[in-house]
């Protein structure tokens, strides 16, 4: 059993799984491969960046503007081109007519 080191106090995601065990537990690989994914409650993008490895595109929303700023900065640093972050509540994701293969409530329902 791999442990999650608690290091960066102040960033809530340090208390969540550090690796991709959530996606492995969901056996989501095939489901997400090449998929359009809507992540609801992305926070600072911890899970988003894992999703982006296999999904064709990810739209990640969260009402927390500071968390979205951090996520956008990280996405820029990693030069991710298939991820879009939006400040939005789960009730109004603001995706218009865009349709997704999968929606994930990431600790947010």
């Amino acid at each position, binding site marked *: *059993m*791999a*442990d*999650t*080191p*608690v290091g960066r*106090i102040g960033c809530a995601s340090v*208390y969540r*799984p550090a690796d991709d*065990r*959530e996606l492995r*537990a*969901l056996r*989501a690989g095939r*489901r997400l491969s090449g998929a359009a994914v*809507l992540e*609801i409650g992305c926070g600072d993008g911890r899970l988003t960046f894992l999703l982006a490895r296999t999904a064709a595109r990810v739209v990640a929303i969260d009402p927390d503007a500071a968390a979205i700023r951090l996520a956008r900065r990280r996405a820029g640093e990693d030069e991710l081109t298939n991820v879009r972050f939006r400040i939005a*509540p*789960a*009730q*109004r*994701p603001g*995706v218009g007519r*865009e*349709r*997704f*293969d*999968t*929606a*994930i*409530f*990431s*600790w*947010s*329902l």
Partner: protein
Amino acid sequence: MVDALHAAHRAVRPGGTVIDLRPDSQHQPKVFQRRVFRGGLQETALAEGDSAASDRAIAQLIAQGLLRPVRTGHFWYSLRFPDRTGLDRWLETSRRLRGYAPGTRGRIDPRAGLVVRRSLTYGIYERVPS
């Protein structure tokens, strides 16, 4: 919560998938030290209420024929803390956890490292074509 699920349902194509992943109120976090179980941590009443409301919201969409259950389950992951002070600090800032289960804190060596095993629950649902 029901509104959020309806919004997700609208955003997902027919036959697509809605996944709900969140902390597990049915399996409370467990505290280990030197691989020995020392006790548990307790959720706030608010967190327990939120979990129950989320369960009801999912059940409502299933009853409405909008979602079809594919698979549910839970899994554990570990958080390491350098000592009891570190765990105390986490508990002070947690919105979900209110503290130690009775007797737990006294069974912990304050200077030794700790592992908290925490469960996440998930549900995978198919978006029913409407």
